[in-house]
């Protein structure tokens, strides 16, 4: 362990006054430079500069400044620097546990508020909704949208062949990562070629129910030879706004009607075939393939604006359903009544079966269990049951609108026969999952579920070649800090000594004892002392999450201490975690906000997270309060305009396409 730092006595700073700035408050009772002199500099001296000053500051983090101006302008103290410092203070990573003085909660808040407001120049009174980014529908969104648009059967998966989406900030709906290659265009063309005839049931080779719904606008209309195309138009007038997820201009309709005419010039074309060709075209249009939000006044000032209600409808539906808005959402947007009915609409959407995408897509990626079935060295049937438990647990919290604190500790879980057997429970038959009480000594909360415990174990070959898994306390601890508390753990330094556990040699002592030797190295201890207590607390669970009392014939030691609070059993560990409810609430809001906005969070989102967390806490941490707080939040309701005037932007940058430099020149609006 590091030797405990000693701090300078700070008589000179006896006048230290701490003032807590409420989040979002931009005024203070002192001028900015006064705050620095009277409060910030003394606090930095009191808690930080013992290590972070001089010519060789610890970790190259230098926290002594002669005045506020230097703090703002020193080249090494850039935004990334301040973000890092702020994060360290928030997560209590700094000062280290063994430091003589720990800042009070008020001091921590004072420092982070100052960093946010004065160093990162974030003013919650002038919020920033974040960048406007064009969002290609990811594979899941694309498939779900086609399913709902064309009334396809639920098991008709058009996305199976699409190349996997890349992920950013943990989620595959991150707009920045949704790039486009010719391969995508090929797939989109091929999918449209296949799915459109299917949904119009051409030659009776597709879905008759889909066709019935798509051609419903023809009810009561009889065409004669002079107005065949009118039939097509009637279908398209209803369908196209759903494809573009917004009202369609007359010019856009005429564009599509050209395809109808094109199809009619070929012998044997029916109106559904003709409509089908127009639909295939519409499915390749940017209005369908991308979620586009239009700056209503692109004047280049970059000022935020409230998104229109059609855009809001899409944000809601892609967040909660990973799919297009339904007719009810469209109607509300059309009537301009979506915002005033936001709460009731969100609750309706959460009750819709399509909200299961929150389980498969959000939960699956947040907790990293989406591909759990592919875990090596574990029976597939058991993996399926493990995943089922966590999914049912999440859906229960969502549909019953339970407290999100159930993730940290709950007196129930969900099992089927396979999992019950694994947990040593009796009287559970069949594949169906049901809610069961848990033995509070052994289970409770998400990280005592076999899925998470197995995920954070490592494949291992034991003597004799039998493949198995061993628990990884480090991975488990890291997983909890990263996913439950949204903390960042740096990578290990190079040249880490090996762990004897994985060598198949006979072990002396428990995994825990081996790990403790490993982290005796001071350069490892800094992070491991953060992570490992969470992992060792779960030592009673083996590499598959089954309960155990011994490891290698030695009794399990699951004791530890977190933020100065000691525990010896999993039950006591969960009691200690109750102290971190505020951290979890924020972390959960951050993960969900990042998913909802389809982008990584920025400094400016701190304001929104503060507000959401406060509202959620006030509402007893109910699941719906997170969702509602989030959809009402400033960044969800607004977009930032482009900071470059379009005409200038075109001139400043290299031509987008050397073949047609004019391709992106502004032309008159339809």
């Amino acid at each position: 362990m590091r030797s405990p730092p000693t701090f300078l006595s700070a008589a000179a700073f006896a006048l230290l006054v701490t003032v807590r700035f409420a989040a979002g408050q931009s005024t203070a009772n002192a001028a900015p430079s006064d705050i620095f002199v009277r409060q910030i500099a003394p606090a930095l001296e009191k808690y930080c500069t013992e290590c972070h000053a001089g010519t060789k500051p610890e970790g190259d983090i230098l926290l002594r400044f002669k005045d506020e101006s230097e703090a703002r302008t020193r080249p090494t103290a850039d935004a990334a620097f301040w973000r890092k410092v702020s994060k360290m203070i928030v997560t209590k990573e700094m000062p280290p546990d063994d430091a003589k003085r720990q800042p009070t909660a008020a001091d921590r808040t004072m420092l982070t508020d100052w960093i946010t407001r004065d160093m990162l120049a974030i003013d919650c009174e002038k919020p920033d909704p974040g960048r406007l980014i064009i969002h290609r529908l990811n594979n899941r969104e694309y498939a779900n949208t086609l399913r709902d648009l064309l009334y396809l059967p639920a098991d008709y998966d058009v996305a199976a062949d699409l190349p996997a989406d890349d992920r950013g900030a943990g989620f595959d709906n991150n707009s920045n990562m949704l790039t486009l290659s010719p391969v995508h265009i090929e797939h989109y063309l091929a999918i449209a070629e296949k799915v459109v005839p299917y949904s119009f049931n051409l030659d009776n080779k597709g879905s008759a129910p889909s066709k019935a719904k798509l051609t419903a606008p023809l009810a009561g209309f009889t065409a004669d030879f002079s107005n065949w195309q009118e039939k097509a138009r009637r279908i398209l007038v209803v369908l196209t706004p759903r494809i573009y997820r917004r009202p369609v201009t007359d010019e856009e309709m005429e564009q599509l009607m050209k395809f109808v005419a094109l199809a009619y010039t070929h012998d044997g074309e029916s109106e559904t075939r003709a409509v089908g060709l127009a639909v295939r075209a519409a499915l390749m249009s940017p209005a369908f393939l991308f979620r586009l939000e239009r700056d209503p006044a692109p004047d280049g000032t970059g000022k935020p604006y409230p998104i229109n209600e059609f855009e809001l409808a899409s944000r809601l539906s892609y967040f909660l359903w990973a799919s297009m808005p339904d007719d009810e959402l469209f109607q509300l947007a059309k009537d301009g009544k979506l915002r005033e009915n936001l709460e009731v609409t969100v609750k309706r959407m959460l009750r819709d079966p399509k909200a299961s995408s929150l389980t498969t897509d959000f939960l699956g990626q947040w907790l990293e269990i989406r591909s759990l079935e592919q875990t090596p060295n574990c029976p597939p049937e058991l993996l399926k049951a493990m995943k089922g438990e966590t999914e049912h647990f999440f859906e229960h919290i969502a549909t019953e609108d339970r407290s999100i604190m159930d993730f940290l500790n709950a007196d129930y879980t969900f099992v089927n026969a396979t999992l019950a057997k694994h947990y040593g429970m009796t009287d559970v038959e069949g594949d169906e999952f049901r809610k069961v009480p848990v033995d509070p000594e052994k289970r409770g909360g998400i990280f005592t579920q076999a899925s998470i415990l197995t995920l954070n174990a490592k494949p291992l070959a034991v003597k004799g070649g039998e493949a198995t898994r061993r628990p990884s306390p480090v991975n488990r601890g890291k997983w909890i800090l990263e996913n439950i508390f949204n903390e960042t753990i740096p990578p290990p330094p190079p040249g880490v000594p090996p762990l004897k556990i994985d060598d198949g040699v006979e072990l002396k002592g428990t995994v825990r004892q081996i790990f403790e030797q490993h982290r005796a190295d001071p350069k490892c201890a800094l992070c491991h002392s953060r992570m490992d207590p969470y992992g060792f607390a779960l030592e009673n669970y083996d590499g598959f999450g089954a309960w155990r009392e011994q490891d290698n014939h030695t009794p399990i030691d699951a004791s530890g201490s977190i933020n100065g609070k000691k525990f010896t059993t999993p039950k006591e560990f969960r009691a200690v975690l109750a102290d971190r409810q505020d951290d979890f609430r924020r972390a959960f809001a951050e993960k969900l906000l990042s998913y909802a906005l389809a982008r990584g969070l920025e400094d400016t989102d701190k304001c929104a997270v503060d507000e959401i967390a406060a509202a959620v806490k006030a509402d007893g941490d109910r699941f719906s309060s997170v969702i509602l707080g989030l959809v009402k939040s400033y960044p969800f309701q607004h977009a930032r305009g482009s900071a470059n005037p379009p005409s200038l932007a075109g001139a400043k940058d290299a031509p987008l396409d050397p073949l047609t430099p004019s391709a992106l020149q502004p032309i008159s609006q339809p």
Partner: protein
Amino acid sequence: MHVSLRQPLSRRAVVKGLGAAIALPFLDAMLPRVVRGQAAAAATGASTLAGASPVNRLLFLYIPNGVEIASWYPEQAGRDYTFSRTLAPLAPHKDDFLILKGLALKPATLDSAGDHAKAMGCYLTNVQILKTVTDNIRCGISADQIVANAVGSRTRFPSLELGLDYGRMEGACDPGYACIYSNNVSWRNETTPAVKEVNPRIVFDRLFGRAKASDHQGESRDQQETYNRSILDFARQGLKRLSGELGVADRSRMDEYLTSIREIERRLEAPPTDIKELPPGVERPLRVPDTFKDHFRLMADLQILAIQQDVTRISTFTLGIEQSRRTYNEIGIPEEHHGLTHHAGNPEKIEKVCQIDHYIVQQFAYFLEKMKSVREGDATLLDNSMVVFGNGNGNAVRHDHRNLPIILAGRGAGTLNPGRHIVYPEDMPVANLWLSLMDRMGVEGVERHGDSTGRLPGLTG
């Protein structure tokens, strides 16, 4: 294209995955005429860097995670070297490849940590990649795409991007770096990777789809393509209408969309150089084989068939993403590859890493053998190709990005002189090799690529 079915199959190799079978006939007569003529010219062995070059191909095979370097290089330089343990499976092809030692990927040493992301992201781009987990991805155009942009329009597909895995579906990748870097070796530009296909069935359909009977009710393939051309034109018009409202951030995405559409349009307009009829014995693979070996071989066969048929001349084939967690149970290794490479000197783990390296090299030997078995006039397909087998980490445990394991196989249509182990001065930029290969592909006017300092000497002898 005339296909003589009277000629017996000169070679037939069958790879069987479960339910998947593909048999590749390597018929000289199936070559496009242009290739036959040029291959014959190339077989004369004359150095043909200038003037009318014979058809040459450039293929990159990327090894994930790095290798156990101590067991990789032979001890001796030059022609008379003794095979190292790892490279021993290549012994039958000793005269067909160069072992290049001393090449380095300096851009990957910049910034802290994230060595796997940098190994992959920098390997063919040779630029410093921007350290970010979410916004503002910045890489560079990769060497294969520079070649594809310059000469790719001569074939139906400017380039092919294949792989054996897409990338991790959950969790974080290399700390500080978005997964997009450690998943993609080929980059169309600084923000857009060239997406790879991993499913052999989809690759088959892309390459040879025109040979299938149309499965669209009552519409011929030609009619479909007429329609698709109109649809793409319409999509481009839609983009024009949008342009006035888009900010700069949006435009890069729209640019990807536009250039992608253009490429497909070009392909639809190009004379069909692809196969109208499938070669006899070639079947559509139905699923992804379970083992590394079977999956590799199926993808290799498809790739070689595409090269042989002149459907493309440029490809990248990623045998695994960086930090690949693949377990090689089929050779008795249930531990994860990436975890094992961090062996920190443990002899048992080192042994297992060596076994994995050896296994991967065995597959490369298969690749070379397959390419050699295809005749092009008096030469072989391998003679008229340049195949780079390598990785951007170098030493898998240290990630020092120096002494990269690089093997350059083939004669490059008479432009390479294989059969040697060449030792370069330490830290020779691998970008110099890419420049030298670009020259041999007929790329003109590229003086620098990333951190290159010139052309790589010694390749011709």
